[in-house]
């Protein structure tokens, strides 16, 4: 009826492209650019490819950004390597591209380098490359993340004395310079020093084979690697934002390793616990009433039932914390005991402060960050309730990352009243200096207050080394708990990694930031 009219013919002409376009879209709907079928990807460890699923896609694989978790977990020790590496279990520094190092003066360190190492582009690794790497990451205008993380505004003077000898000179004595150098991943001199490089060349056992943006990164071994060849010739990284999906990929055989799982993500028996060097606690703004009264800050410490929190929210996998750093980090005070849960004492301290005119009824804002770590919302609600039971007026404010940083880093957001900030601090460097200079100095970037005497102690501790350094920082954590009480530490966290039964691997405290593929082997 309609097809015989002229208007119907015109309509048909218009309908054709629409139908064709729809059909094309439908047909194209079976592939996305550069994609491959993942449904049949069940080979796992039985194949040559090790499959890892991360929380997010690395923004870059640039070597001087390797201290970023999502970058470092792919490149560190896999694609690129440092001169010196820190053993995450013992905390000791061990040779890698450098065979030995010593302080040749108060401000100069001399390193001897391996002479049998090549970069993945075939060029030789030597002192010139090592010097270039340090200069590029620390002294250039690239704005490398590792510069801010480890070196601050300090510039280093570097000299390649000969092919295997390197000297590094610091403006001030720096007893932990070798530890700082362990964060620098070495690149060849052909690497741009005016622009960051998304896919670096390194000396590691794997080179970057392909990066399908948005989908996966593939690494493969190469013939010229100076060390022992890894068990898996290839490694493939994918990323999924949801922990439940990452866990499901391991349980269904689509991935061999899943990073960053929570206790409720469903990894079951394939979830492996490991200490991740992260500590959670409250940072109290001691410059604002009522938190400017030490009795109120002590009351908060007594009011938090840390054992109960660890048991009920974290299945006793976390450990109650007495300080901001866990065991294994230089300066950890093993004899320091956590504040006991004593609600009556907390109430008495609040009442005592109130009797002395401290405005304990003033609203304290408990600021926490959504999705910062597993069960952060539930923990925040528990803390709010427990502080209220001690007689404090607490309001909970959940924020996203950018907002949270306004409370965490100086200059702090103003006119917000007293703040109890829920923090998660990770000391992956292995030395207390990286914690206390930030969190305890009066003007530390993440410190809300301090005292002149405490500042002096902190600065003196930073100049020490060896056993003196250990003792100095132990004393500092004791002093913090007895005289300053800026923090109410809650727990040292435990990470969970999903691991296929077909893989042999024991995660350690650095696995979240540096997943060494060479430590993974097939189970059979």
């Amino acid at each position, binding site marked *: *009826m309609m097809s015989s009219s002229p*208007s119907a013919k015109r*309509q048909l002409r*218009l309908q054709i492209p*629409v139908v064709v376009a*729809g059909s094309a*879209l*439908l047909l*194209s*709907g*079976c*592939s*996305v*650019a550069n*994609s*491959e*079928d*993942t*449904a*049949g*990807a069940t080979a796992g460890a039985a194949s040559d490819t090790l499959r890892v699923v991360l929380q997010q896609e690395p*923004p*870059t694989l640039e070597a001087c950004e390797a201290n970023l978790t999502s970058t470092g977990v792919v490149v560190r020790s896999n694609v690129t390597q440092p001169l010196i590496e820190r053993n995450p279990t013992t905390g000791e520094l061990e040779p890698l591209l450098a065979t030995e190092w010593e302080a040749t003066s108060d401000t100069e360190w001399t390193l001897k380098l391996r002479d049998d190492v090549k970069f993945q582009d075939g060029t030789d690794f030597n002192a010139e490359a090592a010097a270039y790497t340090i200069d590029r990451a620390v002294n250039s*205008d690239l*704005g490398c*993340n590792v*510069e*801010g*993380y480890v070196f*601050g*505004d300090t510039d280093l003077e570097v000299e390649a004395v000969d092919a295997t000898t390197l000297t590094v000179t610091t403006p001030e004595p720096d007893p932990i310079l070798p530890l700082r150098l362990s964060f620098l991943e070495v690149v060849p001199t052909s690497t741009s020093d005016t*622009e*960051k490089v*998304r896919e670096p060349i390194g000396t590691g056992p794997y080179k970057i084979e392909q990066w399908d*943006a*948005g*989908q996966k990164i593939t690494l493969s071994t190469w013939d010229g690697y100076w060390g022992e060849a890894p068990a898996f010739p290839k490694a493939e990284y*994918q*990323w*999924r*934002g*949801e922990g*439940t*999906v990452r866990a*499901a*990929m391991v*349980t*269904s055989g*689509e991935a061999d390793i899943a990073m960053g799982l929570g206790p409720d993500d469903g990894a079951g028996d394939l979830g492996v616990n490991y200490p991740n060097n992260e500590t959670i606690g409250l940072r109290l703004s001691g410059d604002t009433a009522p938190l400017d009264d030490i009795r109120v800050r002590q009351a908060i410490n007594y009011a938090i039932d840390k054992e109960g929190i660890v048991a009920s929210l974290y299945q006793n996998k976390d450990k109650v914390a007495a300080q901001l750093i866990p065991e294994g980090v230089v300066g950890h005070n093993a004899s320091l005991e956590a504040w006991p849960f004593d609600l009556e004492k907390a109430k008495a301290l609040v009442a005592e402060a109130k009797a002395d005119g401290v405005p304990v009824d003033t609203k304290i804002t408990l600021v926490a960050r959504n999705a910062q770590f597993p069960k952060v919302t539930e923990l925040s609600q528990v803390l709010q309730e427990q502080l209220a039971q001690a007689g404090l007026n607490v309001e909970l404010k959940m924020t996203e*990352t*950018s907002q949270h*940083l*306004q409370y*965490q*880093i100086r200059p702090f957001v103003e006119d917000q009243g007293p703040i109890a900030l829920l923090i998660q601090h990770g000391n992956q460097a292995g030395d207390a200096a*990286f914690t206390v*200079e*930030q969190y305890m100095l009066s003007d530390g*970037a*993440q410190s809300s207050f301090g005292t002149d005497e405490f500042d002096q102690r902190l600065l003196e501790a930073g100049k020490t080394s060896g056993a003196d350094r250990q003792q100095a920082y132990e004393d500092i954590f004791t002093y913090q708990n007895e005289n300053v009480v800026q923090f109410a530490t809650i727990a040292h966290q435990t990470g969970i990694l999903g691991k296929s039964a077909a893989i042999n691997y024991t995660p350690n405290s650095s696995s979240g930031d540096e997943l060494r593929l060479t430590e993974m082997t097939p189970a059979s």
Partner: protein
Amino acid sequence: MLVYLRKRILSSALPLVAVIVGVFALARLTGNPANLYLPLNATDQMRADFTARHGLDQPLLTQMADYFGGVLRLDFGESLRTGESAAAMALRAFPATLQLAATTMVLAIVLAVIVGCWAALKPNGIADRISSFVSMAAASIPDFWLAIVGIWIFAITLGWLPTSGVGGASAWVLPIATLLLRPFGVLVQIVRGAMVSALSEPYIKLARSKGAGDVRVVTHHALRNAAAPALTVAGDLTVGLVNGAVVVETIFGWPGIGKLMIDSILQRDFAVLQAAVLLTAIAIFVLNILIDLGYALLDARVRPATVKA
């Protein structure tokens, strides 16, 4: 047709500019992203260097003028996060979302027409009641929950489908099923209502009196008149899919524009956010024109007001 298109392009230019200006200004009201991109212990000098390097220390109007100057040269800036071209990132992500949304909507429409027509043939009959229940449930189920349950059943328990990722046909099943349910549920209701109305018209009774069967009555007479409202709603739902497939893209690791936009917002990656919003706005504009054209094809009463205008 050309006159109509020219008018639509001109009338859409102002909203596009408004969207860009709005996104540009609102994004920058959220503060300096230096804290997000630098280590927590970065010094003040490093924060100042970062801010200056990316031009974030300039007055807002200067930044905006620079941005519009760049847009005119098709330079949308670089990602703060990856250092890549923002336009390249948006263009790389957009086809993945478009394919997902288009496939989903074609399937949703086809299924909704079948189920809606079936239900409308006997209002309040058993088919109508079943389809009403199913469609209401489909329109109400949260996609996040559905996606997780789908993974648990079909990927983990039964092992029939991959949990996530992109690739062959099997990888498309769960994302499409998750996305499909809501538009399917809504469209079934629309088609069913429109068909019930159309089937009660006198010309349908005339067709039946001439001996036309159910299939012929539905496909040759009633459906054409019932299609217009369904098309309008389908258009809105498609816009929603293009713009809002964030949950599905996040859960299934689908490298689409929705996830890119959310990541850009959370990371204050201004250039990528602006490029992604602009691309999406243009796509929605094109989609709306296609809907208008389709509407005109289906309904002669509106044709002069749109296509011939």
